[in-house]
């Protein structure tokens, strides 16, 4: 089965049912399907071929969801990027995956224009919104590029399902995530990987076509992306919001649209718990809340149960490389609130010690290993990093995923997160590579040394904190450093604070060590 068949099946079964709600726009499943078919035909006509990568840079919107399915229907691979991405990183990714097309919105043109004109592999650019400026810009800078307006590509023309060549072991998506080396890496997921993950998740969430999901999570983040995929699978409705900037407006929308499912990350629950007014409101339609990315503190769980007494709360854990690992059945939340549960349906999990022996004693920490059809095929063109994460499994043909996360398992098989093996920071539910932030800091001429760590934060989960040593006599301020970071990093990677140091702690070989920094922070 191919991922776009979720949409095709739902469109023929429930053509007039509301599929997407975003701002003032409401689309039915047959309207989404028709636009995706047209877009696929337009991409093919513009030279996008079987297996080509197509990058999408847009806010959460119906166009983003239509693009995902349209790209698949063109036998191509979709790559959805964070809407706050900066020019350098966009250029890196277009180049890294040798994208053949870019789909964006005129509102993103200040970021997208330059990289679009200079990416050597690009054949076509589709622009939603006001196309006048992008058109003039590309005509001058890169006249050979085919430029299409969203209207021409998706709103007009033949809307029948285009012929297809892809099979389910073909690549469906690259999801770029932060790597320990600093450069983002593309997680390779096939149609089968994604169909399998979506099927497991919708099974344990017991999704039905009456479900209405409200998502404020970016579609570039796998947790946000799967809300759209899952809604297409079970024929529900997806209400999309661009952000959680105005929590009360989101709550209002939730009531108005009679939302039944609300995926959150701990940062959002921290913000919800600050709204006193919520305790006076009732949410009779809300059936479930899900949380992933980082464990919910017990105080959040209790607070959420108070605000949403009728909703089941699912505590979950996962990583992009296999989408989701585990979930805690809501009725277990009272007895084991700190657990992230057991492996999801059609998946096995176990722990191994440092010598790769399977741990059978309960409560002994070890690295979590995941087996299942949801496990990625590797990192795009990074064989060494792939080999570290994907290793031989029980059968000669299979690879299992070494997550790099240390867990404990109790006697009944429930998982408890211990720590990560590397220094990746999780802020606002997204992974931040300290190396990537440090590289941005080192580009500031006055910074001699930099070290970035995660510190506990009530709202963000972990906040990004930078320690820097300045050149002698430098007058660089914290504000100037943060402003630089805002121009060069996606929002969630920008440090919250900067601390100036005379020097950074070093190992005997002279390498900067963050151990001392971590301890100092715990005291502070």
């Amino acid at each position, binding site marked *: 089965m191919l991922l776009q068949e979720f949409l095709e099946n739902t469109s023929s079964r429930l053509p007039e049912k509301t599929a997407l709600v975003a701002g003032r726009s409401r689309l039915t499943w047959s309207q989404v399907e028709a636009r995706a078919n047209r877009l696929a035909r337009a991409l093919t006509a513009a030279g996008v071929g079987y297996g080509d990568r197509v990058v999408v840079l847009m806010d959460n919107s119906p166009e983003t969801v239509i693009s995902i399915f349209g790209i698949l229907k063109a036998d191509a691979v979709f790559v959805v990027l964070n809407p*706050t991405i900066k020019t350098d990183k966009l250029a890196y990714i277009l180049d890294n995956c040798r994208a053949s097309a870019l789909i964006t919105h005129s509102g993103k043109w200040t970021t997208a224009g330059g990289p679009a004109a200079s990416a050597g592999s690009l054949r076509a650019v589709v622009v939603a919104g006001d196309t006048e400026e992008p058109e003039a810009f590309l005509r001058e800078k890169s006249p050979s590029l085919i430029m299409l307006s969203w209207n021409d590509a998706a709103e007009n023309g033949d809307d029948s399902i285009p012929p297809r060549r892809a099979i389910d072991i073909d690549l469906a998506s690259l999801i770029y995530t932060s790597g320990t080396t600093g450069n983002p890496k593309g997680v390779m997921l096939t149609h089968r990987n994604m169909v399998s993950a979506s099927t497991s998740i919708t099974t344990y969430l017991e999704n039905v076509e009456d479900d209405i999901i409200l998502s404020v999570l970016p579609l570039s983040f796998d947790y946000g992306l799967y809300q759209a995929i899952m809604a297409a699978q079970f024929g529900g409705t997806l209400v999309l919001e661009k952000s959680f*900037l105005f*929590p009360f*407006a989101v709550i209002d929308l939730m009531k108005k649209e009679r939302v039944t499912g609300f995926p959150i990350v701990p940062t959002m629950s921290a913000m919800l718990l600050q709204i006193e007014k*919520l305790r006076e409101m009732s949410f009779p339609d809300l059936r479930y809340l899900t949380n992933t990315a980082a464990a919910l503190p017990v105080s959040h769980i209790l607070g959420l149960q108070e605000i949403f007494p009728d909703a089941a709360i699912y505590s979950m854990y996962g990583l992009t490389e296999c989408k989701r690992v585990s979930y805690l059945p809501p009725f277990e939340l009272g007895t084991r609130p700190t657990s992230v549960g057991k492996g999801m349906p059609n998946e096995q999990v176990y722990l191994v010690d440092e010598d790769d022996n399977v741990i059978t004693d309960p409560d002994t920490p070890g690295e979590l290993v995941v087996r299942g059809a949801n496990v990625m095929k590797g990192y795009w063109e990074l064989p060494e990093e792939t080999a570290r994460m994907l290793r031989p499994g029980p059968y000669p043909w299979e690879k299992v995923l070494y997550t790099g996360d240390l867990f404990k398992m109790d006697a009944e098989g429930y998982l408890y997160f211990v720590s990560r093996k590397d220094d990746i920071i999780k802020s606002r539910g997204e992974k931040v590579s300290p190396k990537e932030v440090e590289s941005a800091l080192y580009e500031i001429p006055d910074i001699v040394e930099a070290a970035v760590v995660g510190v506990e934060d009530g709202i963000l989960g972990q906040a990004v904190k930078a320690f820097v040593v300045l050149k002698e006599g430098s007058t660089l301020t914290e504000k*100037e450093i943060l402003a630089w970071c805002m121009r060069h990093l996606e*929002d969630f990677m920008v440090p919250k604070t900067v601390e100036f140091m005379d020097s950074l702690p070093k190992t005997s070989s002279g390498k900067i060590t963050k151990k001392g920094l971590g301890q100092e922070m715990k005291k502070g």
Partner: protein
Amino acid sequence: MNDKIRTYIMENILLGSADHPIADDDSFLEKGIIDSTGILELVAFVEDEFAIEVEDEELIPDNFDSIGKLAAYTEMKIGG
């Protein structure tokens, strides 16, 4: 009022990183000017600076999504 709010956003939330001054009707949401932690800073700023109290249910795009809207809301609060 508009300029006070603009200066605060440009200097304390965007820390001088913006290439152009923000226009009165630029949507914070549409243009990605402020993120969810920035909005809380902005609430604290108008509460302190103009001695008003922002109720939870008032933190909505109609009141807070641009400099113009925020100034109008703040003036309404001061007046009321």
